């Protein structure tokens, strides 16, 4: 059992750390997106006007796209987010709610980067999702085995002893794991359950042997796409459909609009309600004929198993939550990251004490430093690059601005790994801590003039990370062999 906990934790530890950290940040996805688009603070428009102008822009710039997916403006995200196929790939752009154009807003992925990284790890489909789902299961396994092998779970329950080497790391590992144990368990299980199709594909392949996409249609029949008839027909005005949806959805409001085959006789407009007032992710969906504007279907999910799944999914993504709950998700996620980091550090300490040959463990120790201290810095560089890169440049035709921001994260991670492999571990910790101090100080300053709660919160959070890096700098040491 102890070996399973140790090795199971070690093998997925770096991924779990990255997933937990990015997941914690993804809780504030709209807020981060807003911070990374400072132009948005001065923009206000009503959602119907924003949707109309957004559709007008898409009519001009993506008229032949097979579908448009719009996320409607709301309080946390005051812009329209449009996803469409531009002939070569899917493009996601934030549209100005007053003009409908993306040109006045800087090109960035914003908080969506952390959201996608959390379950895709920026890897091609389906590898990232398989790894993330496996990590979810591994966390569940590590929690169960951890509770079983922890003989002194009660004795050590509220114990945190500082400056006692391995003992202190074990205390940190225990306390961060145990204090939020129910959260860790539910978040890991629901995370693995939401990606069940990646880790248990057999049932899906058996039920839908010819076309797996039919599963998604059966899951949400109201959003079933139709094949194009290749007969040009103008799209009916969106306003009557929007108003009908607002009337039927009531307090839940409108969250998303999908338009399949725009400007075709077979066009379909799907309007989905918001789900901030309930935990489950099950939505109220309306389906309109896109060419006439007539309502075709009013669908509300009632199937028990789908509802149960939507509750699990809703628990994981926390879209229902208020500000306080979101902060609790954030800090509990950070506790999971700290528990993972301390576990990985303990693993190296123990192995170096018990094994004769230290070569491999020295490499792992250095990689630990590169990942556990380096990754938060890489994420911080994502924020800094957002403010340092010019809004318009001729280079963006080859690499888009949003991609440059993402490359900064991976490029810096690579540099950190190279630094760590080259130097001794104490020096690595000192170097990375210094970079971290500068990086997080920069983020807290970049929020100037701190004119809203988002800039305040991000600056304060980066100051918490800054103090952590100061602590790490002052206490930099290699794994003791005595």
């Amino acid at each position, binding site marked *: 059992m102890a070996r399973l906990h140790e090795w199971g934790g070690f093998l997925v530890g770096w991924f779990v750390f990255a997933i937990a950290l990015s997941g914690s940040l993804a809780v504030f996805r709209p807020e981060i997106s807003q911070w990374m688009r400072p132009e948005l603070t001065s923009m206000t428009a009503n959602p119907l006007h924003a949707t109309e102008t957004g559709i007008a822009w898409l009519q001009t710039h993506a008229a032949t796209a097979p579908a448009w997916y719009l996320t409607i403006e709301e309080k946390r995200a005051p812009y329209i987010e449009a996803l469409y196929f531009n002939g070569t790939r899917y493009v996601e752009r934030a549209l100005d709610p007053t003009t409908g154009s993306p040109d006045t807003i800087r090109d960035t992925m914003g908080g969506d980067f952390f959201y996608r990284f959390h379950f895709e790890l920026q890897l091609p489909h389906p590898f990232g999702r398989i790894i993330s789902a496996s990590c979810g299961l591994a966390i569940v396994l590590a929690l169960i085995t951890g509770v079983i092998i922890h003989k*002194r779970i*009660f*004795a*050590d*329950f*509220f*114990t*945190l002893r500082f400056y006692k080497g391995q003992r202190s790391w074990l205390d940190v590992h225990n*306390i961060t794991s*145990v*204090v*939020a*144990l*129910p*959260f860790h*368990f*539910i978040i890991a299980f629901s995370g693995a359950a939401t990606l069940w199709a990646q880790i248990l594909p057999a049932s899906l392949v058996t039920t839908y042997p010819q076309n797996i996409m039919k599963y998604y249609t059966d899951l949400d029949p109201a959003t079933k796409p139709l094949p194009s008839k290749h007969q040009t027909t103008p799209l009916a005005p969106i306003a009557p459909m929007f108003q009908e949806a607002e009337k039927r959805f009531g307090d839940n409001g409108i969250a998303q609009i999908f338009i399949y085959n725009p400007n075709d006789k077979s066009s379909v407009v799907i309007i989905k309600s918001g789900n901030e007032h*309930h*935990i*489950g992710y099950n939505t109220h969906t309306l389906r309109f004929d896109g060419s006439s504007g007539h309502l075709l279907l009013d669908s509300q999910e009632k199937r028990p198993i789908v509802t149960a799944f939507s*509750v699990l999914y*809703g*628990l994981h993504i926390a879209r229902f939550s208020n500000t306080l*709950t979101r902060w*609790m998700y954030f800090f*509990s996620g950070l506790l999971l990251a700290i528990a993972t980091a301390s576990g990985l550090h303990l693993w190296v300490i123990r192995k170096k004490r018990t094994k004769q040959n230290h070569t491999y463990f020295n490499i792992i120790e250095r990689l630990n430093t590169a990942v556990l201290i380096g990754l938060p810095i890489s994420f911080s560089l994502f924020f800094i690059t957002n403010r340092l890169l010019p809004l318009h440049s001729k280079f963006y035709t080859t690499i888009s601005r949003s991609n440059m921001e993402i490359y900064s994260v991976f490029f810096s991670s690579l540099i950190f790994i190279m630094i760590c492999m080259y130097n001794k571990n104490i020096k690595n910790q000192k170097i990375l801590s210094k970079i971290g101090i500068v990086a997080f100080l920069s983020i807290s300053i970049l929020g100037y003039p701190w004119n809203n709660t988002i800039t305040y919160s991000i600056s304060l959070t980066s100051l918490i990370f800054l103090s952590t890096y100061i602590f790490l700098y002052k206490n930099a040491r290699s794994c003791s062999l005595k």
Partner: protein
Amino acid sequence: MLIEVISDTITSLLFSCASYRGEKVLHLHHKYCHLRRCLAWVALGLSLILHIDQSKTIGFALICWMFGTGIAFACNGAALGLIESFRGQKTVRRQ
């Protein structure tokens, strides 16, 4: 709501009474530690049942349970740590 808060508080108090630090700070006898440990696990399960009973949905009950117990544990741990550190100042260093 109040009954849920009380249940989470009692659960965390039982866990702290069962811990080594809790025994030391609260001057509890080690003899009954097994009983307190059993009661703590039972209280954790019962508090989940209570949350499910009091909440409209299972999802909301799980949210309240995981964060309620988490906050209660954190507050209890911090309180024990504080009490111990205040008492620790009074101790006289052995000659």
